[in-house]
């Protein structure tokens, strides 16, 4: 009973278990170990398969598994039957009654302890799991695709900045063949090792702060040496608990973009600079009336800074007192109309105070739509100045033309009225112009000769070919000659002709003007002059030979007189009475005096004719030489000499010596009665010019006769008093005059004389 009770109790429990299994939504199958036919199947399995229990009772597990044949299935059961394995698990498909399949995990178990041994299979429907798995795989694939396709480089690192992964582009940047190769590397092992410290510092900062760092620029060096600019973002990676376990980074290569930006900035700067060179004020105004850009001249003219001007409404700058309705600049600008406006300095809308030209140009985009307005203001002051200058020049030129025209008229009038003959002819030699002078000279009236050939004026039979003159005129422009011409009366006369070319406005020879002078009188005078000159020449020649013969022939008889008187004196002195001896003495004295006269005459003629040899002459030295000679010849004299040193003048040395010899000779002579004679030579300034002088303290002379001093043969003393020929001072005068100088004297009777001379 107990057993029964136990059995009863066991049966109760078994029922409940069966009921639980049968009602389970899990798929539980129990099938006979021998026949493999299903014995019990849970509700969940029946629902999923679509079979009823009755239908299943005739089926085995292989019926439900299209992928598995009975052989294979038996092989699964083998280890369970042998007790080798307690559980066999495998995956396959179950086919529903409607033929559809679903993936399953099969867990097989053997229960031999039952009255009839059974296999229990717990089937887990994998449909949902497989679907989730598929979705996950797809998502991962997509993510990888995205990661590998986007141009952005993505990488992630652990807390030690060791790489955990990256995308394909990043791997390529790092010279790696695949992203997997990055794992375990750090930045020191990658091409940009020079930036490793920088990168790792950034990583650390992000990870420690837990704050992302977004869009910042940093450099990167590649293995080919290229230096790039990156725009990088880094965010901390957190686990489920929110703890930071790494860093995720991404970057873009913005090198080109950056370069383009810089180039653009440079271009802008260059353009701005170029604009600044313009003397015109240039501004660019947006369509909503704001100044976008302006050049230097604009700032200089308005006195505004860039800060003040950019964004400002141009109207407020142009009209600080409020806008005017009729301002032509503002209305053209607002109308978006290309135009050019000139405003004078005093125009009410022109604040510049100068004449200006304002050009307004609408800048359009490629579609022709207005984008902005360019306003260029050009200062016209200089242009106005140039215009004024030009106007002045033109006025001046006109004035000159007028003056010149008047002048020409006057000249024409003068030419007509002048005394001399002016005749114009054309290229054929026909007379075209005939002035009053020509009327007077030739005797023809203008009307008689105009149109006639010029041959009319030449003597018959001597018709000069006009052609000759023309040829000369063509080559040299002028022709001058002397010829014989004929008056209306038939009388011939000597004429001097000068012909010059007459050009038309295009500088083409159109004829000649001939200026004719009657030179009959001039010729006669020249002839007379020539005759006089010849006479003068022969007279001079005669004078020269006269001098020569004087020196030879006049002296010879004198020498004979003197010589034979001496012979008488020497040979017959005993038989001559005293008076006879005296007479002989007188004869010799007279002969010798005449010899001196002749010498002096010759000298004065030489002085007059000699050619001057100019050179600096030391007069002091000459004076010393002369006085030394005189001292030697006349040692009895006691004379004080005062000679200034180095008086140097330009002149002919030998002539100046003759002059000084005469002056000093005179001083010597006229002081011979003095016991304390003194002769002085020197130079002093008179009225700023140097004047030489020879002074003595001799007998002097009366100034009344001063004008006779330098005349030949004029003597102020008798031969008894002082010997002399009267030629000396005349010679001095000649010499000084020939040098272009002056000579004069100052004296007082008994007190001496002073002779002055200048030498320019």
């Amino acid at each position, binding site marked *: 009973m107990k057993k029964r009770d136990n059995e009863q109790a066991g049966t109760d429990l078994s029922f409940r278990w069966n009921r639980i299994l049968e009602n389970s939504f899990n798929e539980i199958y129990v099938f006979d170990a021998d026949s493999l036919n299903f014995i019990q199947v849970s509700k969940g399995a029946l629902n999923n398969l679509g079979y009823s229990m009755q239908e299943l009772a005739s089926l085995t597990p292989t019926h439900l598994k299209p992928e598995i044949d009975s052989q294979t299935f038996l092989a699964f059961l083998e280890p369970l039957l042998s007790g080798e394995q307690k559980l066999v698990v495998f995956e396959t498909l179950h086919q529903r009654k409607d033929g559809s399949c679903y993936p399953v995990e099969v867990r097989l178990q053997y229960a031999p302890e039952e009255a009839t041994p059974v296999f229990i299979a717990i089937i887990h429907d994998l449909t949902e799991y497989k679907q989730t798995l598929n979705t996950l795989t797809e998502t991962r694939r997509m993510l990888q695709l995205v990661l590998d396709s986007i141009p952005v480089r993505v990488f992630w690192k652990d807390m030690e900045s060791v790489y955990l992964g990256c995308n394909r582009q990043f791997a390529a940047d790092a010279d790696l063949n695949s992203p997997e190769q990055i794992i375990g590397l750090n930045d020191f092992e990658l091409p940009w090792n020079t930036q490793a410290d920088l990168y790792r510092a950034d990583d650390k900062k992000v990870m420690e702060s837990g704050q992302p760092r977004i869009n910042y620029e940093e450099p990167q060096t590649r293995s080919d040496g290229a230096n790039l600019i990156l725009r990088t973002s880094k965010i901390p990676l957190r686990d489920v608990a929110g703890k930071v376990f790494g860093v995720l980074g991404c970057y873009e290569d913005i090198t080109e973009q950056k370069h383009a930006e810089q180039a653009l900035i440079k271009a802008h700067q260059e353009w701005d600079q170029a604009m600044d060179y313009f003397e015109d004020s240039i501004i660019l105004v947006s369509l909503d009336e704001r100044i976008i850009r302006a050049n230097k001249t604009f700032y200089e003219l308005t006195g505004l800074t860039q800060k003040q001007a950019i964004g400002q409404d141009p109207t407020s700058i142009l009209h600080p007192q409020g806008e005017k309705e009729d301002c032509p600049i503002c209305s053209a600008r607002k109308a978006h109309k290309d135009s050019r406006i000139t405003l004078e300095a005093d125009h009410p809308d022109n604040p510049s105070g100068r004449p200006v030209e304002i050009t307004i140009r609408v800048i359009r985009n490629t579609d022709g739509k207005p984008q902005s307005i360019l306003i260029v203001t050009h200062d016209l002051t200089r242009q106005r100045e140039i215009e004024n200058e030009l106007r002045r020049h033109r006025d001046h030129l006109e004035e000159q033309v007028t003056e010149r025209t008047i002048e020409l008229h006057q000249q024409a009038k003068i030419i007509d009225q002048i005394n001399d003959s002016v005749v114009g002819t054309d290229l054929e030699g026909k007379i075209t112009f005939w002035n009053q002078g020509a009327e007077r000279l030739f005797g023809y009236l203008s009307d008689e000769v105009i149109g006639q050939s010029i041959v009319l004026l030449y003597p018959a039979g001597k018709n000069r070919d006009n052609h000759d003159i023309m040829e000369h005129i063509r080559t040299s422009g002028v022709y001058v000659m002397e010829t014989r011409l004929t008056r209306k009366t038939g009388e011939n006369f000597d004429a001097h002709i000068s012909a010059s070319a007459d050009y038309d406005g295009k500088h083409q020879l159109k004829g000649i003007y001939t200026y004719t002078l009657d030179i009959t009188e001039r010729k006669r005078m020249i002839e007379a002059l020539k005759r006089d000159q010849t006479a003068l020449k022969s007279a001079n020649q005669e004078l020269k030979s006269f001098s020569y013969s004087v*020196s030879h022939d006049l002296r010879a008889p004198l020498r004979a007189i003197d010589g034979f008187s001496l*012979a008488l004196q020497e040979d017959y002195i005993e038989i001559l009475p005293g008076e006879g001896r005296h007479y002989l003495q007188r004869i010799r004295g007279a002969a010798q005096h005449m010899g001196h006269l002749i010498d002096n005459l010759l000298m004065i003629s030489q002085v007059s004719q000699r050619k001057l040899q100019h050179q600096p002459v030391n007069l002091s030295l000459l004076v010393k030489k002369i006085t030394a000679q005189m001292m030697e010849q006349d040692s009895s004299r006691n004379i004080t000499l005062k000679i200034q040193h180095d008086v140097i003048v330009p002149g002919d040395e030998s002539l100046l010596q003759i002059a000084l010899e005469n002056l000093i000779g005179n001083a010597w002579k006229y002081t011979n009665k003095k016991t304390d004679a003194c002769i002085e030579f020197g130079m002093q300034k008179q009225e700023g010019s140097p004047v030489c002088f020879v002074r003595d303290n001799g007998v002097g002379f009366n100034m009344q006769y001063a004008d006779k001093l330098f005349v030949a043969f004029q003597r102020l003393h008798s031969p008894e008093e002082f010997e002399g020929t009267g030629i000396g001072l005349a010679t001095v005068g000649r010499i000084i005059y020939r040098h272009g100088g002056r000579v004069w004297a100052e004296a007082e009777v008994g007190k001496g004389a002073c002779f002055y001379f200048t030498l320019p």
Partner: protein
Amino acid sequence: MHVLLIEDNPDDEALTLRALKKHNISNNIVVTRDGSDALDYLFGKGQYDKRNTSHQPKVILLDLNLPRINGLEVLKHIRADERTRRVPVVILTTSTEEQDITASYELGANSYIRKMVDFDSFSDAIHQLGCYWLALNQTARPSLPDTPDGGYTPESREPMVSETS
């Protein structure tokens, strides 16, 4: 040993001879009255064709202003001929023309005496120059080098001017 005086003016001739005589240079003075005559004498032509031209004067006193052939022309001939080119020639003249003096020296004159009106001075000059050249000629002649171009050396050309003015 003789002196040749070439002088056309009889007064001057008489006075010169007197001056020479007074200073004991009176032996063997030959006088010719013009240039042509003088050249005939020197080169044994005309009336002198019998003369032995190997004997030439020790000194020639030559007046410049001569009829027919003037003094400078005579001088030129004297200097051009081998027989006479070494004979000292003293020019006697009244001329003071610079060009005459220069021309004389250029043609080979040895001295130049200006004939002054004052006879004393002239006489002195004759004496001095005559003696000088006679003496020089006696002693110096054998040793005079036989120069190919002219015959008288720079030493013999050394001018001796006695001008009594």
